């Protein structure tokens, strides 16, 4: 999902830039075809099948299926566990991107002002990008271990205050932190490059106009950074829905007591562990629609984005 969005945004820019560069339909097609095949095979066909299956009752081990109309939807929508997962997904979608972008923005603003050690920080902050989601999960399970991790001293003061294995809120916080940690490098790069693309002269002009560094952030840097902020916002929002899977699978497996059972993980469990293929397909279709609605809402925000340079 993430890579596809980047592709679409990139393609639009490039199309306006290089129109007329390639001649002949053949070269167009030969360039576009490989990625088109991949997108169709691994995105459009599965999504179409999910919508298709959501109207059928599938047998767990293959064989015939039965058309049931909207019965699957009725079953899923009346299941409180679905709504719980949906609600948790929504909270996750707001908290994790909000903090991941907010923290990245603070780091990028600091690095852009070239304060002490910012040169080193620029490199170090980018490193986590090279770590896979599942590995991050394993590491964070250890870091937040109630007896050995960084919060172990809390438990010595007041036993049981921090235990993500049994406390749902603690588990949710752990997953959120891991997700934020995972998201910061990419957002940081995008935002920092956006800040550095703002001409130095503007800051000088604003300084001459009497605007101090903090005021310049609000009046100058943030408005001119809106294209990058919007990009990270859209990517983070969609990314949290699907990317949290790796973290949840390695860290909590949806537990304890379903506290970290986001919709994306519930679909996996329902479909591949409980063999409720129709239920999983239906939830996939619902999740898909939810994401589409979210993205449409986000693009309505785009009129606040200032692209002028």
């Amino acid at each position, binding site marked *: 999902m993430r890579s596809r969005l980047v592709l679409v945004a990139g393609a639009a820019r490039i199309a306006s830039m290089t129109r007329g560069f390639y001649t002949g339909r053949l070269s167009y097609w030969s360039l576009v075809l490989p990625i088109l095949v991949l997108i169709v095979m691994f995105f459009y066909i599965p999504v179409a099948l999910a919508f298709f299956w959501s109207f059928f009752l599938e047998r767990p081990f293959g064989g015939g299926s039965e058309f049931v109309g909207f019965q699957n939807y009725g079953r899923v929508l009346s299941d409180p566990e679905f709504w719980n997962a949906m609600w948790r997904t929504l909270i996750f979608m707001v908290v994790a991107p909000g903090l991941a972008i907010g923290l990245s923005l603070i780091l990028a603003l600091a690095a852009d002002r070239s304060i002490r050690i910012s040169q080193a920080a620029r490199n170090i902050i980018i490193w986590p990008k090279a770590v896979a989601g599942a590995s991050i999960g394993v590491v964070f399970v250890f870091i937040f271990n109630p007896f050995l991790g960084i919060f172990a001293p809390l438990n010595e003061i007041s036993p049981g205050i921090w235990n993500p294995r049994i406390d749902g809120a603690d588990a949710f916080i752990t997953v959120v932190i891991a997700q934020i940690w995972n998201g910061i490098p990419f957002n940081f790069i995008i935002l920092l490059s956006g800040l550095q693309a703002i001409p130095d002269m*503007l800051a*000088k002009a604003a300084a*001459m*106009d009497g*605007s101090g560094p903090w005021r310049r952030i609000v*009046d100058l840097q943030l408005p001119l950074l809106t294209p990058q902020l919007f990009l990270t916002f859209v990517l983070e929002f969609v990314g949290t829905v699907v990317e949290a899977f790796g973290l949840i699978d390695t860290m909590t497996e949806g537990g304890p007591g379903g506290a970290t059972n986001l919709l994306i993980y519930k679909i996996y469990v329902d479909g591949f562990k409980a063999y409720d293929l129709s239920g999983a397909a239906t939830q996939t279709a619902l999740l898909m629609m939810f994401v589409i609605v979210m993205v449409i809402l986000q693009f309505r925000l785009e009129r606040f984005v*200032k692209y*002028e340079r």
Partner: protein
Amino acid sequence: MTLADNSIALHEVRKTFGDNLVVPGITAEIDGGKFTVILGPSGCGKSTLLNMIAGLESVTSGTIRIGAREVQDLAPKERGCAMVFQNYALYPHMTVRNNIGYALKVAGVPKRERCERIKASAESVGLHGLLDRRPSELSGGQRQRVAVARAIVREPSVLLYDEPLSNLDAKLRQGMRMELTRLHERIGATSVFVTHDQVEAMTLADRIMLLNNGEIEQYAAPSDLYENPATTFVATFIGAPAMNLLNAEGDGSGIRLPNGTLLATMPFRGPVTLGIRPESIEIVPDGIPCRNVYSEDLGSHSIIVAEVADGQKLHVATPLCRRMTPGETFSVRFVEDAARLFDPTSGKRLQST
């Protein structure tokens, strides 16, 4: 506020970037209410000096006074300066109105007063009906006007220009020069204008500070700079084509080329560099023999590049518009009170005539 209040006094102002000495120490007084141009080749430290006056660059040592206040440690906004930048530096996300009014907004000027001052400022630079446009919708000349309007809206006591005309085409530049002169006469702020263009310097300035390698070569009125250059650097930097410099020898009664040709009758003895402006050379039937190398007819006058006896080049500007064939010989005479003598080793001016 009297004019003297806006004078800028630089005392031993130094700037280093790491080990790189950019401005080795400038002491000068910039007159209040006057138009001063800081002129010099690129890399001579003129923009750095301007930025130090503005407060955008810290001074390594030395003091800067604006009026009676010592300002080198103050933030830009406390110095009462406004600046026009080379590439306009307009805020791309704001309308022209908000660009001009930003300083007032930051200063907390009430909205009603702000609107009036924006309008007055925009009209004084000839921006009509463009207040709701974005900078991206304006031409280069219009953007420059917005930048000027933004600078004058606060009624600054000091107005700084950092090569503001170099992004404009030649025709527009001349128009803007005239407007800037008029603007200066009207608002009377102390104006400091940085440029590498000697035409801008000559036309705009009350006084020109000519910098070379961070040091003042000469600080004088434009006509003085042109007629009485203090060094050979000034002589060659000002004027197009530049002042001719000939290696010659004085025998006590006249300045002669090594082969004995008399250039000018001046009581000087010893090796010397003789400087003469191209337009102070007259073509005469009998005088210093020259051989034409190249000539350009510019319509109003022509420029002839000639060689004197020992092969030194000489530029001659003559109102006689004629094209000479290469190799053609003719003779010239130097207008003697226009000839200037320089020390051949230090390049400093030798006598004041």
